[in-house]
């Protein structure tokens, strides 16, 4: 298994005049509504523990007010926590002084924002160069790097345009190019695609997945959209009222939701498009190979369900990449999963 890149431990954030004393109240069991009503403090995050794996996409999902945007801002310390720690590559972000924090932000992380946050007085190229200018990278090298990423996100020919003249989708491509040009190992995406039309959003998701296939960054992706979370997340954390309800791989969250909140959330999801064969297979124990059907472990159910219906196999044998048989799946189990 890959290494932990970002470790968030016992993170608390309380907004208000005297967060430290409010923290004691929270530890004594005062809940969010009570805290607001009686003490006039807002509980942003409560006891968040999350290990984010290197080179994976960690989605943090929740509705507005759940604290997800607050959480992502703790990773590059745009927000100071009330208590807890954030460790990146073994170094505590919260213990850095101003200079090393700036250095950390310049070289390790890059961020993409919900409303793009581009500089309106700079062109697409100048916006993309922003991070490198901040680091005083040599002009010629910076230019080459920026142009490469502008090209990579499909904005060639728009270098000299100003952001106002681009559509939302194109502006966010600039935001993405700006973040990628910075070349940090960690990409923080705060509802990066939420402001876009559904079709363009799908485009951007595909671009992100395609890029991730070759770049292998550690991506923290915030969203309120479950379909988006299931599509791009290697792992998903679900936040509600500043508390983490559940964390795990998409299939686990769908198949065994821990709380009613998560259950309500995942109820209407089309499972066939999210669950892969390997998620629901059982151990092989002498299944009959006659009339069996073979499926790849990474196939989604909707890839083979039509064939199951037409061929009526006795069972499904799951194979891995090197063609070993690693498990089986009965048609009865399959129909249970789909009926839920």
């Amino acid at each position: 298994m890959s290494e932990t890149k970002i470790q968030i431990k016992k993170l608390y954030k309380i907004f208000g005049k005297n967060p430290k004393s409010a923290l004691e109240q929270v530890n004594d069991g005062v809940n969010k509504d009570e805290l607001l009503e009686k003490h006039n403090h807002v509980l942003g995050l409560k006891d968040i523990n999350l290990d984010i794996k290197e080179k994976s996409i960690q989605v943090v999902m929740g509705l507005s007010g759940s604290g997800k945007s607050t959480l992502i801002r703790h990773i590059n310390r745009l927000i100071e926590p009330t208590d807890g720690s954030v460790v990146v590559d073994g170094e505590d972000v919260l213990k850095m002084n101003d200079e090393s924090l700036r250095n950390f932000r310049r070289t390790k992380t890059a961020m993409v924002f919900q409303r793009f946050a581009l500089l309106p007085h700079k062109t697409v190229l100048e916006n993309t160069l922003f991070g490198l200018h901040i680091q005083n990278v040599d002009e010629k090298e910076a230019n080459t790097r920026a142009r490469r990423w502008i090209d990579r996100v499909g904005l060639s020919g728009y270098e000299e345009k100003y952001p106002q003249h681009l559509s939302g989708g194109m502006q966010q491509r600039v935001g993405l190019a700006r973040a990628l040009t910075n070349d940090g190992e960690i990409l923080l995406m705060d509802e990066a695609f939420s402001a876009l039309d559904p079709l363009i959003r799908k485009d951007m998701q595909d671009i992100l997945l395609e890029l991730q296939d070759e770049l292998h960054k550690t991506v923290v992706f915030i969203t309120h959209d479950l379909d988006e979370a299931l599509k791009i997340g290697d792992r998903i954390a679900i936040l509600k009222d500043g508390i983490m309800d559940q964390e795990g791989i998409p299939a686990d969250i769908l198949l065994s939701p821990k709380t009613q909140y998560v259950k309500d959330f995942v109820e209407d999801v089309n499972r066939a498009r999210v669950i892969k064969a390997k998620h629901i297979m059982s151990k092989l124990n002498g299944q009959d190979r006659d009339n069996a059907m073979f499926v790849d472990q990474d196939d989604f159910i909707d890839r083979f369900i039509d064939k199951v219906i037409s061929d009526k196999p006795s069972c499904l044998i799951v194979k891995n990449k090197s063609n070993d048989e690693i498990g089986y799946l009965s048609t009865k189990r399959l129909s249970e999963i789909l009926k839920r």
Partner: protein
Amino acid sequence: MEDFLSEFPELSRETLRFIKKGFDASYRAFSREYGDAIEAVFDPVLYFLVWFEKLLQNSPWPIVLICFLAVIYFGSRKVSVTIGSLFAFLLIGIFGMWEDTMSTVSIIGVCTMLSIGIGIPVGVLMAKSERAQRICTPILDVMQTMPSFVYLIPVVMLLGIGKIPGLLAVVIYAIPPIIRLTNLGIREVDKEVLEAADAFGANPRQKLFQVQLPLALPTIFAGINQTIMMALAMVVIASMIGVKGLGQPVLKAITNQYFAMGLFNGLAIVALAIIFDRVSQSFGHRIQQHRSGSRE
């Protein structure tokens, strides 16, 4: 009891006189002690002002006119404004007000430069620090509302009659808009854009020069425009303490009831105001080209 209600209980006449006398005496002592030193501080400004005025007045008028028109054209990039200015300057010259106009242009120019040079840094400071804002706001209120004659008295007591006191009076009156609008412009910069600058590791200086000031520029320019207009409005009052220019004939016209003389010089001030306004406004619009189209 009846006395108490009908008459406001006030200090006795002797006490009041004592307070006023004491105040005046101590200020007079202060000005006698430090007047020269303070005057020396302003010497460089005075030299520059005199040099600039002499330059405008002693150079051949066609050259000055051509320089003005060039600045106007490159500032506004508008032929109509340039031609209008040409006619205005020709009329001013024909009606015998060229020399006074040059004096006024020089003092307005220097006042505007001083106001920008002091005003923008103060505005930045106000935007960065809540405490600076709390301290500066009431001072700016006083500067804008206190009748200018009142602060002319101590300035004249300290520095005498002349260009520098006039310059100070104009700057005190004209500087608040640029300070206020610089502060406002920087405070209005989109929070998410600032957050982006932070997230990419910009230090405070980079944030100021690459994000905050450029984004605040349109608002700052509105402030510069206001400052120029207010400086022009002070020309007549400044002439009361010995500043040469279009204000002095107006003052003479008031005291002697010369209507035509007042009107001519007044119209010359109006013409200058319109030229300054059009040029600075179109320049302000032009630096915001990103709002209208891509770079040519």
